């Protein structure tokens, strides 16, 4: 009898968790659809969009650049030592380039921007919710979805591919620096090998991924901030949830997009 009660409680808690997860997915999907529908209808707040482009894109350059530089360098070292096991040291330039533009550039940029931007959007919108600034926008005949959410999501979706592209270039440069200064590659050969093995599809798929990651980063920041709970604790929780959910969704979307691009 006691075992049955335990089983009942155990299955009940699993059921509640699954239902909660489904409800959360549904709410996020609705928020995304609402955001896209507002994206397509005026009014458009161009000044706000420009400000967000600067905040999300330009001010993320240092963190993305540094991440890419060190990753490219480390990648060159790893591929060199790994390749040495079967005398394939020469693949360093091409593998660094392909790995950076297909995977590491967009994914690492996405994760770094998730840490920097998702959290700041969630904290800003959460504070605006708690201090009634979002209600104030409504009373001033301004739709908060259009004024707060759309410019951020659009700016991140546009800025991320640019950031990822810059990250790709800097990452390849990191590999080039390590390859030529530490591993003894000839500079001209390194560049030649990088160019000759890189295809348009590699770069394009990376940029499409980055755009998707930008959308995810801003959407998660906006969703959690917009629906933030009360007080400092509510804003803190919104910030954590934004970063965690954006990071997980970036990795999941990365797998899905890789399947779409490279297994067909």
């Amino acid at each position, binding site marked *: 009898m006691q075992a049955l009660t335990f089983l009942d409680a155990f299955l009940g808690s699993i059921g509640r968790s699954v239902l909660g997860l489904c409800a959360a997915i549904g709410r996020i999907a609705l928020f995304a659809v609402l955001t896209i529908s507002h994206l397509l209808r005026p*009014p458009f707040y161009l000044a706000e969009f420009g400000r967000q482009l600067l905040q999300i894109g330009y001010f993320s350059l240092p963190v993305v650049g540094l991440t890419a530089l060190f990753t490219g360098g480390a990648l060159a070292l790893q591929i060199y030592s790994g390749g040495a096991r079967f005398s394939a040291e020469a693949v360093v330039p091409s593998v660094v380039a392909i790995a950076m533009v297909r995977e590491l550039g967009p994914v690492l940029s996405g994760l770094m921007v998730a840490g920097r931007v998702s959290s700041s959007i969630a904290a800003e919108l959460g*504070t*605006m919710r708690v*201090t*009634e*600034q979002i*209600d*104030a*926008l*409504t*009373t*001033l*005949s*301004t739709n908060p979805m259009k004024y707060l959410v759309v410019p951020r999501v659009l700016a991140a979706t546009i800025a991320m591919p640019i950031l990822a592209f810059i990250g790709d270039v800097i990452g390849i440069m990191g590999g080039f620096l390590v390859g030529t200064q530490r591993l003894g590659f000839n500079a001209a050969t390194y560049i030649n090998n990088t160019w000759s093995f890189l295809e348009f599809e590699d770069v394009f798929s990376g940029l499409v991924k980055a755009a998707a990651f930008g959308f995810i980063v801003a959407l998660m920041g906006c969703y959690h901030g917009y629906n933030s709970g009360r007080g400092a604790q509510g804003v803190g929780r919104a910030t954590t949830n934004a970063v965690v959910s954006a990071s997980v969704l970036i990795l999941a979307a990365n797998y899905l997009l890789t399947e779409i691009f490279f297994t067909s």
Partner: protein
Amino acid sequence: MIQLINVKKSFGNNHVLRGVNLTIEQGESMVIIGGSGTGKSVALKSVLGLVQPDSGQILVNGADTTEGDRDAFLAQFGMLFQGGALFDSLSVWQNVAFRLLRGKGKLTKSDARDVAIEKLRRVGLKPEVADQFPAELSGGMQKRVGLARAIAAEPDIIFFDEPTTGLDPIMSGVINELIREIVVEMGATAMTITHDMSSVRAIADKVAMLHEGVVQWTGPVSEMDSSGDPYLDQFINARAEGPIEAVR
């Protein structure tokens, strides 16, 4: 005229509004009083559509608030929020002129700035404040900027949510006086929620007391002290003993 007809609103098992009936005539200043958690803010936000009532009807000048053009409906209102709710990222004049810079009757930047500075002057702030940011201002100044923003587009109806909360008694007096002057000067319909009795006496034409989700008493401010209603008496005389249970 604003009419709330049998308005009900619950949050889960918490039945905040249990059938509120209230009428605010054109040009009248109605102050809603009541203890914390009695639904004053929810009633006010229901009129603006920031909270959706579960049932009942809210009419503004005879029109149902849930029907018609939402922007045109909201253009009739100005609101002073409890904490000011000024936009941190915008300067003071941009906050005041927020509505003037957007929408159908959009002004040029320089005209909107002129109007904002005029409204700031009206609430007793110098033009130098215009280019400062809200975080640089004191609580009293933020309230004044919020008031300037509420009246910037010269609305027909103004809502004041706890206008003196967090202010010292002198600043509370100044804000109360300003509200009274502005409401009379503009001929606006005003709805204020507060539990500051000095605000009630300074601002109100009529008073409504909310208790347990319904209007417990309503009448002219002049009759408030002689109402004979035990709930109202306990509240306005700040007595711990009485029909309203105080949590100790």
